[in-house]
């Protein structure tokens, strides 16, 4: 938003200031009835700014600019077919110096700016997910104002460093309900409703895959739904052998997932809490099936995964899986190994890991709350600024090391320090998107 006259309020010649208290009594409404609008800006059709969303959680892009939004409160996944006018190319945005591992802060104080935009204080802002629209390199964020039944969801996009609200009304939309209300005609004396907390949504080849956890049943359920949406839905329960726990983990929920073809065969890869990496052949995920996945890696105990994505290393051109983890370094594993890795033996002794592909995982210094791949050279992260913890920023981060030199305390950052990586020679090589 433009704020070109920022000084207006403070410097007003004789600014009038009243504190108006509004009481809920009837009267003045009638006096307004004669005013007809002559023109409007930023028009949205409905009164509520959230369009069909009741909440805004995980995000994913499908083909044809379709943005999927997981809606826990609405027990649905929404598909918004974004129009050309909903997207703005960001390929000219300065991302930093790739050679020198210097990213840029694309938005500083994200939560505070969102609070100002939505007319609240920043403790009431909850950022759920971030996704990049690859063709335009535009960043989309799911946000809620409020943390209770008053929570209002929005999708916000970043346009050249400015935050813009995606006007949902008017965007071609469809949705599919995630079954979570049991069919019962009886009532409890006082009721708690079942809710299915959607942990991830991913699109692959005409279908979306939805994982989550219920507040009542501790079960691992996976929904496979055709897109465009139809009444057809495949629901199965999944279980795994979890070497850290030395047991079949029959109920633990999948936290993050992605679908990739390995040697022409599609697989769903999933990460769980505490942090097994599991492989399911897509063909095995049939309706009402109870499927056992192969654990192919133990990324380390005592932690929860945050994001799961793939990127291509700009140096060796190989594709890698990246799993960011809350209390540990992020994990990097070659995608080519995912399909061929031998499953961890079942029935074995407890192994606190790392195990399987976890033994050969690369460790990356990502401590972001959300991570997405922007283009072959750059990722984008939402993270607390390391030296000023009060600031939540959106920043670019150079692949494939995901290392930010500005944050380091290295002698080579000093003006007259050693320069083994020739940072100074490349000082002026600023890269943009595209």
């Amino acid at each position, binding site marked *: 938003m433009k704020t070109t006259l920022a000084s207006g309020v403070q410097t007003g010649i004789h600014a009038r200031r009243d504190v108006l208290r509004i009481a809920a009594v009837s009267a003045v409404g009638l006096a307004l009835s004669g005013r007809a609008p002559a023109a409007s800006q930023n028009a949205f059709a409905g009164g509520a700014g959230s369009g069909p969303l009741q909440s805004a959680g995980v995000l994913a892009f499908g083909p044809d600019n379709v943005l999927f939004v997981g809606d826990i409160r609405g027990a649905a996944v929404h598909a918004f077919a974004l129009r050309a006018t909903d997207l703005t190319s960001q390929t000219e945005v300065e991302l930093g110096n790739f050679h020198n591992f210097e990213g840029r802060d694309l938005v500083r104080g994200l939560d505070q700016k969102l609070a*100002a935009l939505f*007319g609240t*204080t920043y403790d009431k802002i909850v950022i759920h997910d971030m996704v990049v629209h690859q063709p335009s390199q535009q960043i989309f964020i799911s946000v809620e*104002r409020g943390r209770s039944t008053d929570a209002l969801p929005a999708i916000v996009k970043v346009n050249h460093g400015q935050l813009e609200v995606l006007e949902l009304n008017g965007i071609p939309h469809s949705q599919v309900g995630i079954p979570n209300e049991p069919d019962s005609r*009886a009532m409890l004396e006082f009721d708690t409703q079942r809710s299915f907390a959607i942990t991830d949504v991913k699109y692959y080849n005409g279908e979306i895959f939805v994982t989550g956890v219920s507040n009542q049943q501790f079960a691992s359920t996976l929904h496979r739904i055709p897109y465009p949406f139809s009444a057809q839905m495949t629901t199965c329960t999944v279980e795994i052998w979890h070497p850290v726990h030395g047991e079949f983990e029959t109920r633990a929920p999948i936290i993050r997932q992605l679908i990739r073809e390995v040697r022409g065969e599609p697989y769903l890869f999933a990460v769980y809490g505490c942090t097994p990496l599991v492989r399911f052949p897509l063909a095995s995920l049939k309706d009402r099936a109870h499927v056992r996945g192969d654990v192919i890696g133990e990324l380390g105990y005592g932690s929860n995964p945050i994001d799961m994505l793939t990127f291509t290393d700009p140096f060796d051109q190989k594709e890698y899986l990246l799993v960011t983890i809350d209390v540990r370094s992020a994990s990097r594993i070659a995608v080519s190994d995912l399909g061929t890795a031998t499953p961890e033996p079942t029935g074995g002794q407890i192994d606190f890991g790392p195990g399987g592909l976890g033994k050969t995982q690369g460790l990356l210094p990502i401590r972001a709350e959300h991570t997405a791949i922007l283009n072959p050279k750059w990722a984008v992260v939402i993270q607390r600024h390391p030296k000023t913890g009060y600031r939540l920023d959106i920043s670019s981060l150079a692949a494939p090391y995901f290392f930010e030199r500005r944050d380091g305390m290295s002698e080579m950052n000093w003006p007259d320090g050693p320069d083994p990586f020739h940072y100074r020679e490349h000082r002026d090589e600023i890269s943009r998107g595209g």
Partner: protein
Amino acid sequence: MAAGFTLSAADRERSANAQVTNQPSLKVDFNPRQPESVGVGVYNLDPDFVVSLSRYTQAGGLLTSILRVTVVRTGAPIGDNLPDVFGRYEVLGDGVRFDPHFPFERGLSYRASFDPRPFGRPELSEVLTLEFSLPREQNALPPEVNRIFPSSDYLPENLLRFYVCFSNSMQSGRVEAEISLLGPDGKPAADVLYRAPVELWDRSMQHLTILLDPGRLKRGVGPNRELGPPLKVGREYTLVVGSGMVDLSGRRLRETFYKRFRVTEAVRKRIAVEQWKIVPPAAKSCKPLVLMFPEPLDWALLSPTITIGSTDEPSVYGRIVVDQCERRWSFTPALPWAAGSYDVRVASSLEDVCGNGVIAAFDRSLQSGSDAYEVARRSIPFRLV
């Protein structure tokens, strides 16, 4: 909220003056087309000026720099470099109005300003500002914990979950900091509660599910061997719900809530429906049908997973009461019981407080053989004559 509102006396006076002097006035009011939506408008503008505003917007000019609304005290450490409140603008017959994208928040102060100076009209050289806030809703009481399930003061060693029921709708984001389990020594027991990827609230935000770490519940598994089960038989523990839990309007719990309980032997068997006691009602009465369970069952799942069906009716409508520490389930039909054959039907998703299901126990070896999926009994027939 009522359909309209009155302004304060001062504002009414100013509004009357404005009409006399025909000066522009900045007001907070309801959107006439959306009576629930409160916005900000500038009225009494010269018609000529309104025409130029219309032309300005038609030519792509933005009203965002003319009529602005900001939060007065954002508490934002990054300072003033913040956007204005986002919303929609309308040019009206004698003014312009702004409606926020999301409704103004009650209890928060906003500042509206109208700055017509860029239009360079000598009679409009004054910046109008207005601070306003909508009153908080007054009536509700501070939140309390009404109940915690399971209700019993004796809970099995392999308890899987608690439900915390609050009197008000609560705010999310504080569970990890505010809810803990104190061990027998009165100190918080580490790594006992499961850190769910998403806080597990129901839609009313009044019921919260707290899971104990399933990794420590399962015998012989890594965390269980390393750290032992989360609870130990014979010891006393306390689930603490800290007063820092806040409700929808930001009020803290009236007081910290403690649920003390003693740990009993683990329950590691499936729910044996065949061992339930059934007390059928008399036909043509409205008396409840009562089921008694040998072990307490999961409070939340007891409602949706047990239904009564008959040959004529797939599901009888009625009201459920669960009591006696979740060991008794009573169903009172909406209409008197008709004579005939009925079934108590139990969905496979029913669990006891340890997560044991109708089909199998939660903590069981899958290595030793197949589960008796087909043999589990899932219905109890009864006949009313």
